[in-house]
Structures are given as C-alpha cells and as structure tokens.
C-alpha cells in the first residue's frame, strides 16, 4: 500500500503543486485586500445596494463581508468548491480507471500487489495530495494574516480548510465510485463535476427560494459545508458526516474494484439497448 501511496503522490505532484501555488497566490491577493475593505465599508455597501436583490441573496449575507469569517466565505470559500473540485474529481476519476484505459494497470496488477492495497494506497495518495494543495493555500492566508489585521488565529483559519477538505474528499470518493460504475473515467469525472456544480447552484438558489428548495438541499453534501463560517465555529458533526459519507461511497467502489475484470486498455462501451436497436435498424 505504501508503494502505491508514494507512487500516487509522485504522479499527482505536478498538478497538486500547480493547484496549490495557484490558489496560494490567489489567497495572498485576497488577504492583502482585507485591510482596505474596512476603510471602504460605506462605499461597498452603497455599491452593493444597487445590485439586484436576487443576485445579492445568491452570495449570502453581504454584511458579513466586514467580519473575518464572512470575508473568508464571500471572497474565497464561497465559490472555491466547484473550482478546486475540478482537481479532486478529475484526480479521483482517473485514479484507477485512468491507468486501466491507458493499459498500464494490467502490468501493475501482474505484480504482487493486492487490489485492496492498490485501491486504498492510491486513494490515500490522492487525499495527501489534496491536503497539500489546501495546506499551501492555508499558509498563504495564515502567514500574512496578522500584518493585514485579519483577526483570526492560525488555528481558526485552519477550520474552513478542514470543511473544504471534507467536502472534496466526499466528491473525490463519488468520482472514484462512478469511474468504476460507468464505462469511462472521463464520463465519471464529468458526472461527478456536474453533480458538484449542480449542488453549488442549488445551495445558492436555496437562499432565494428557501421555502421551496430549503428542504431539498439538506440532503446534499454542500449544505454541510460551512466555508468561511467555519472559522467562527466548526461543526464537527457535519465535518465527520461528510468524511463518513465519503467512506461509505468508497466501500462499494473498493468492492467493485476487487471483482472487476481488468481491461487491457481503452474505454468500455455503454452497451445501451436503444443504441443497439438503432444500429440494427
């Protein structure tokens, strides 16, 4: 398992560094603006008051912008999930099936490595790479925070990152499961990313139509993602729930991988009855 863990980390090193450094630079830019936000409070509120109410509602309570937690949420964590989600979903969708489609998995599994070790070693490798990406971003917030008057301790700053990690862990696990259910890793990645974006939009819409959509979003993962608000108090139950849900998705994925016929290469066909009927026609 350790070999596969290290191997996965090595493979994800490039993309993890790219994402990590990119997000860290963006974080540095956002955190450096914080000092000027307080001095421009009135102008910003005046500007925002001109926006359509529906638009403002989509992004939550804009008055919270002037608190550290609200600033973190609105300027960073509020919309980060679908962006960094691309890394999580694409890495996990290709974790096993990507190698199978490239014809690499065949030779790897001809060596004395169990499918269990391969599965968990690789997923843990992804988890460590994801933690690395978020940690770089965390450092970019934490190191300059005191100098710009950001009134959150390093420990408090860490909490939204934990919340983000948990939700990405869950969507990564979903992408991995889908990759073993669907005929191709690409399709699995697209579906998982689509579900993440749909969930993100649904959460935004639930702020506009709380009565209609509110009860539905409770059953979606992003409802339990606190974002920047976690800095004022992380809901450990929600965090644990997201991680546990991810693990629950991983169990059938593991089982599917254990009993899978490893392909020599290429994507699997869809074998849709309707298409077969059309071809016959």
């Amino acid at each position, binding site marked *: 398992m350790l*070999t596969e863990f290290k*191997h996965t980390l090595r*493979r994800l090193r490039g993309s993890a560094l790219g994402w990590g450094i990119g997000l860290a630079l963006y974080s540095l830019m956002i955190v450096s603006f914080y000092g000027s936000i307080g001095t421009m409070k009135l102008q910003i509120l005046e500007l925002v008051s001109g926006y359509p109410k529906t638009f403002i509602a989509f992004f939550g309570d804009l008055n919270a912008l002037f608190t550290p937690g609200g600033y973190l949420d609105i300027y960073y964590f509020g919309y980060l999930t679908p962006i960094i989600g691309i890394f999580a979903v694409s890495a996990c969708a290709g974790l096993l099936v990507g190698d199978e489609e*490239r*014809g*690499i998995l*065949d*030779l*790897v*599994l*001809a*060596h*004395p*490595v*169990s499918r269990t070790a391969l599965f968990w070693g690789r997923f843990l490798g992804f988890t460590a790479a994801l933690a690395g990406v978020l940690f770089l971003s965390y450092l970019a917030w934490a190191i300059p925070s005191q100098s710009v008057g950001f009134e959150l301790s390093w420990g408090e700053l860490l909490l939204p990152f934990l919340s983000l990690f948990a939700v990405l862990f869950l969507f990564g696990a979903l992408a991995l499961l889908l990759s073993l259910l669907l005929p191709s890793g690409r399709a699995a990645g697209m579906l998982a990313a689509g579900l993440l974006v749909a969930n993100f939009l649904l959460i935004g819409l639930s702020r506009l139509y709380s009565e209609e959509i509110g009860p539905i979003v409770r059953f979606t993962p992003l409802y339990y993602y606190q974002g920047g608000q976690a800095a004022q108090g992380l809901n450990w139950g929600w965090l644990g729930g997201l991680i546990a849900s991810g693990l629950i998705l991983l169990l059938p994925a593991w089982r599917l991988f254990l*009993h899978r*016929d*490893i392909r*020599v*290469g290429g994507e699997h066909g869809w*074998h849709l009855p309707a298409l077969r009927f059309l071809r016959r026609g």
Partner: protein
Amino acid sequence: MEQETAILIRGLVKWYGRIQALRGVNLEVRRGELFGFLGPNGAGKTTTIRCLLDLIRPQAGEVRVLGLNPQANPLAIRARVGYLPGELNLEANLRVEQALRYFDELRGRRTDWSFVRELAGRLELDLQMPIRNLSKGNKQKVGLVQALMARPELLLLDEPTAGLDPLMQQEVYRLLRQARADGTTIFFSSHILSEVEALADRVAIIRDGIIVEEAEPGRLVHMAVRRVRVRFKKPVDLAPLIRLDGVSLLYQNNGIEATLQVEGDMEALVKTLAAFPVSDIETEHRSLEEAFLAYYKEGR
C-alpha cells in the same frame, strides 16, 4: 504430478458479455518447459494468460499456476511469475530506471540491480531514457527486463519479440534459453513459426477459444503450408515437382516460372529441384497464423 506442473488448465470458459472468448481450454505446461502458445488474433491467447494472473475471472474451469489457484492466491502466484503483456503500456513520464524501480518496489525490493544492468546492456537499453522518448522496440525491451529481472519461476510472455529487430530477437532467444537453463518455466505466445521452432519444446494452438492442437514444434512445421517461387534458366516440365507428396502447383508461366504450395518440410522438393536448371528460388515465410488458418480451412 502437481509439483511437476507449472500451469494446469481444465475446461476454462470466459465470456465478455455476449462474446465467448474461451470455450473450455485444456492445457498443461510442465515445470522447466519452454512452451509456445499460438493462434490467430482474437483466438484467446491473451485471455488465457490474463486468467492465469487473476487479472480477469473465468466463468468456469479450473486453473492452477505453480500448484496454486490464481483466484485464491493471486499474490503468491504473482510473486513467482514474470509477465510481459501483449500490449505493453508504461507510464510515459518516468525514466526507464524509475519504471523498473517502481516494479521492483511492488515486488518488495528484491531485485539484483547488477542483473538489471546486465539485462539492459544485453538488450542495448538505456536506463536513463524517458519512456515517452522510446520506440516500440525499446519499450518492449523495458517490458522484457521487468519480466526477467526478478528471476521468476515462471515467465508468461505475450509476443515477447514484437517490435524487435532480428538481431535483438536472437538476443531475446538467448536470454530465454538461459532463463530456462536456470530452471524457469516459460510460457510464451507468438505468431512467428521460426521463433517457435527456435525456442519451444512443445506448442499448443488455440483457435476460437479452444485448443485445437498440442504438439512438438517439428510436427507443426511439418503441418505448416508455405509457398515457393521458382524461376528456371529455361522452360522445364513441372510434372516431377507436382507429383511430390504435399506439393501442388498454384501458378506457372510457360515452364520458366512456377509458384508451388508445399505442405510439410521442404526436403523432397529441394532434392528434386537439384536436377532442374534453377536460376532463383524464393520461399514465402508465411506467419504461423496464416499457415494454420490455411491448414484448418482445408478442414483437416
């Protein structure tokens, strides 16, 4: 008995959806044997080999590799087996040595690296080359090195010389003979008759998912069909040639040129041709696949 058997397959059946790839394969390979596994594309060679390593699971039948059931003991088998896939793909962003070290790590770092360097040297493989820059032949060499480097008890090689030039093929034959001399059992698939003749102690032919022949290579050569083109210095009477056992005339041009089909060995034809004014003779080396397709098409 079991201790003397490296591979035992009984009634192996494998379906891919609605397609039946194996229809009850029976096969036995003895320890220390160099065994050739032949058949046309899609006959079931790769499927059979992949069942031996538990990469795919058959619907029926019994398989034993080195006395073990691949589904019950996959790791114990893979630790003792070296495998070269028919379609070799390697991680393009690694260097050759990095790829080999990764495979070595999967085996628990038991490889003797001086042996790896010796293999690389004999195959003229640069260990520092990025895999993405390697030609098909050089990638095949990486595959061969990774299969051989752990000095396994059993080698499963799917088309071991595919993409290699003739000189390198000869070097691979030497490596395989040496491995066999060191006690390794070798089970390899091939399309090339000369390769089978040069290497195998015994050969099995698979067609449409079933073993249709199991024999010594010499017997297969006898069964094989080839074409011989002969040009003469002056027009000749071809009747003495056509009367020979296993020789038939496919084409002739006024007795100055003839294309003959020869079944079995060439001895009788060559002896008879010695009495003819031959200016040129050309033998068409048909692949084993073609030769046996012709053989079976004739309903024998």
